[in-house]
């Protein structure tokens, strides 16, 4: 089965009038092979939106190839009927009603107007559909944007920052909606800064930094790789425990909130060895657990080389 999206060696340069060149994408490679939810993560300016724009033919790559549903992006017209997208927020005529805006998009894409009621129901906007878009909250506009992306009942849905401006309940709705779309056998590509959201809904993530993909894989793989081999030790006497572990040649430091100690396991050492060292000095841990990073912590670690918020001074090797 052909990949849904293939991106190989994608490079995008912007040249200013003064001749200065800015590299937005520098050899991006990734592949999205089948139904599920895929997340694009990265700080502002890392290349996520440029990648999405390249997938949709809005920007022309300087080099590299992009295929969508088996077609080169230059032939996007042949498959666009199977793609729905929302790029950088919803864009509607504010004076017209939500329904009228959808009618215009439906007419543009040659979609049956009967589909409008379906997508309005999907995003729970039926009640407000006849009000002007200018009266909508940001969240309602976002939901209408998703509805417009779903007009042609697409196989591939590309959503750029779909939870922007949504309240927690709205985010939960979008989360549920995205999962629902994936469960219907669609491929959903989501870019977001809401990493907590991504963690909950994505099957796989692709992390960008400085125009490059620095990591890709399942959320579990990404978090595990970023966390490295670390354990979290809860114990009563932190100072004595830290000194003991240091004498044993282990790297250990307290968490920022001081509730536990993070121990870096090195070489062939195991958590049992850590427990044995402490017990030998008469120190007994109340719990020893694997130190699990959130996706946000992993993301920060990989994109900025920052210390995970849970531990002071721990540097995790960057994935390449």
């Amino acid at each position, binding site marked *: 089965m052909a990949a849904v999206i293939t991106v190989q060696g994608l490079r995008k340069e*912007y040249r200013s009038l003064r001749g200065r060149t800015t590299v937005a994408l520098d050899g991006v490679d990734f592949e999205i092979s089948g139904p599920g939810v895929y997340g694009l993560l990265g700080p502002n300016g890392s290349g996520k939106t*440029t990648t999405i*724009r390249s997938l*949709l*033919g*809005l*920007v*022309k790559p300087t080099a590299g190839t992009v295929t969508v549903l088996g077609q080169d992006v230059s032939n*996007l*017209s042949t498959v*666009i009927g199977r793609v729905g*997208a929302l*790029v*950088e*927020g919803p*864009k*509607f*005529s*504010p*004076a*017209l009603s939500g329904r*009228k805006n959808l*009618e*215009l*998009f439906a*007419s*543009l*894409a*040659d979609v049956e107007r009967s589909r409008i009621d379906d997508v309005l129901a999907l995003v729970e906007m039926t009640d407000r559909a006849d009000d002007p878009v200018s009266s909508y909250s940001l969240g309602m506009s976002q939901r209408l944007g998703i509805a*417009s992306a779903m007009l*042609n009942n697409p196989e591939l849905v590309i959503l750029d920052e779909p939870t922007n401006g949504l309240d927690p309940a709205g985010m939960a709705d979008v989360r549920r909606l995205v999962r629902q779309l994936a469960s219907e056998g669609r491929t959903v590509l989501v870019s977001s800064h809401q990493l907590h959201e991504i963690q909950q809904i994505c099957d796989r993530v692709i992390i960008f930094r400085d125009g490059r993909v620095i990591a890709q894989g399942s959320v579990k793989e990404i978090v595990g790789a970023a966390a490295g081999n670390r354990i979290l030790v809860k114990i009563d006497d932190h100072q004595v425990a830290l000194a003991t572990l240091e004498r044993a040649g282990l790297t250990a430091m307290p968490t920022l909130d001081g509730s536990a100690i993070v121990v870096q396991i090195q070489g062939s050492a195991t958590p049992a060895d850590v427990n044995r060292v402490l017990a030998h000095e008469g120190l007994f841990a109340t719990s020893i657990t694997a130190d699990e990073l959130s996706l946000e912590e992993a993301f920060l670690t990989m994109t900025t080389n920052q210390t995970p918020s849970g531990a002071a001074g721990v540097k995790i090797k960057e994935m390449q």
Partner: protein
Amino acid sequence: MTVFRSEVERITSRRATKVAAGVLTLGLFAIGGTTFLSHTNAAPDMAAARRLAAENTAGCMSWASEPDSGIAAADIATTCFSDPLWYVDDPKFHMNQILAVGQDGQSWTEITASIQERGDVYKVQESAEEEPVILPVQQASYGFSGGLVSFATALSLLAAVLGATYVGADWRSGIIESQMVRIPNRRRLIGGKFAAIGAVSAAGSMLFTSLYVAAVTPSAIWRGDFGVADGAFWMDVIGVTFRTAAMAAMMAIIGGGLALLARNTVAGVVGVLVAFIGGSFLINTPGRWTAFITLGENTNAFIARADVAYILEQSFQGALTWDRVVGHGYLAAGLLLATAAAGALLFSGASFLHRDVS
């Protein structure tokens, strides 16, 4: 076709379009109303006018009958004719006034024949001693100076502004990006968009020029007459209507093209206004080139079936002379504007096809 249909629907659904249509409709009501109310022709006014005309005729005939007046007896009646309408402040509204002013008493065919008189050839002098031959210029202000032509010219300018604001608003709101996500074939998208802009402008201008005629018709029926509005007159009204439609379409495309190129409403509107109004400042500069760059003059000439003139500077017997002479006729003016519209579309379209949207 789907792009065209969708764009037509979107243009006609726009608030700006509705506001412009509403303002125009109200304006036409006002024109119709003030025309009707300002042509009262009250009975006492007409009686006084008839009395003054009779007095004038009597006085004239008395003078003309004198042997030294030099007026032949057979010509006295004609020479001393006084029309009572000359003595009323509010004369009857003649329907032909919507195309030409102050041409009472002649059929429209006669009026147009007289204003179209001009030489066939303009010959630039070959030497400074040869007297320049100046071709009479058929000016819009002489031929079609009526309200309909001015209104039609204003409609063309409005179409240009609406074209610029429509395309500019698409960029500002990002709607064009949403459209491109659905129609990746940019040629198809822009073709449909501009076809719709042109078609709506043409249809709108035809509607409103027709409404203009309709707005003053009650004045002709109840406060005046259809005067000398013969078949030729109505053919000219239809001609003005169709030429205005073509002009509105071209101007809207020029305005939209400028906005597409700049991706900005203000640039589109300012560009059109500078081209339209700015040219008027050049019209008194000597040189044939001025006839080609004055957008407003060419628009007016095309609609009014007039000439576009320019100032010719010549030397005759050691002295410089400046004369307004014919640059080109109304068909050439139309062709020039069609070329400008095609150029705006091609240039902005090429830019749209190749530039990123980011």
